[in-house]
């Protein structure tokens, strides 16, 4: 169970391999976020800002909630900050469990909370302008499904 906030890239395969060493782990689910340009709008890079003194405790709290709720034998969150080019990895979560449904549900839960409660902000840089990414209403709706 650990969280990292870093400028460097990460190695998803290596993180998943580490989790597989626990003999009770049969299922590992990962999510990787990638810098994308879905609207073909000429995105050059994504700037990621965070609130340094808040971010690790926010991620650890999100991770602890997931571990309280599901049978996880491993959990890893890595989130990058700084300037990332189109196609670069932004972040990953990985969850390891004896059971595949626990691993899937916990990974979705972590992503929903991370999107709305971890102090990161994205700014999209284009050739001649830059704009802050707006939070999405659907992300808040995704969060609500865990609150019953």
């Amino acid at each position, binding site marked *: 169970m650990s969280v990292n906030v870093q400028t460097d890239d990460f190695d998803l395969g290596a993180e998943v391999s580490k989790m597989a060493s626990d003999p009770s782990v049969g299922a590992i689910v990962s999510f990787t976020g990638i810098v994308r340009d879905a609207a073909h709008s000429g995105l050059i890079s994504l700037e990621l800002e965070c*609130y340094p003194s808040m971010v690790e405790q926010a991620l650890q709290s999100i991770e602890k909630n997931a571990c309280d709720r599901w049978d996880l034998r491993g959990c890893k969150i890595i*989130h990058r900050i700084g300037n990332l080019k189109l196609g670069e990895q932004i972040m990953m979560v990985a969850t390891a469990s004896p059971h595949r449904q626990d691993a899937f549900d916990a990974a979705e839960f972590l992503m929903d909370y*991370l999107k709305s409660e971890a*102090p990161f902000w994205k700014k999209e840089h284009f050739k001649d302008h830059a704009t*802050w990414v707006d*939070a999405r209403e659907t992300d808040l709706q995704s969060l609500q499904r865990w609150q019953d």
Partner: protein
Amino acid sequence: MKLNVLYFAWVRERIGVASETVETDAGSINELLDELSAREERYAIAFSDRSVLRCAIDQTLVPFETSLANATEVAFFPPMTGG
């Protein structure tokens, strides 16, 4: 009381600094926002729509009604967009 106030993302850009020390008698976050908005236009503009503003006291997300008693660090920022 003296508060360390931090700003992030477009809130930081509109206010023009990443952090500052604020001397205030505000009892709540809402009162602090009112007080700063009355001081200078850049605050008034940055804080004009509180529905797109979020706040943390001492690194914990809180609603705007929260008391500032015992607060040492207050942060204002837009809704988060990580992940």
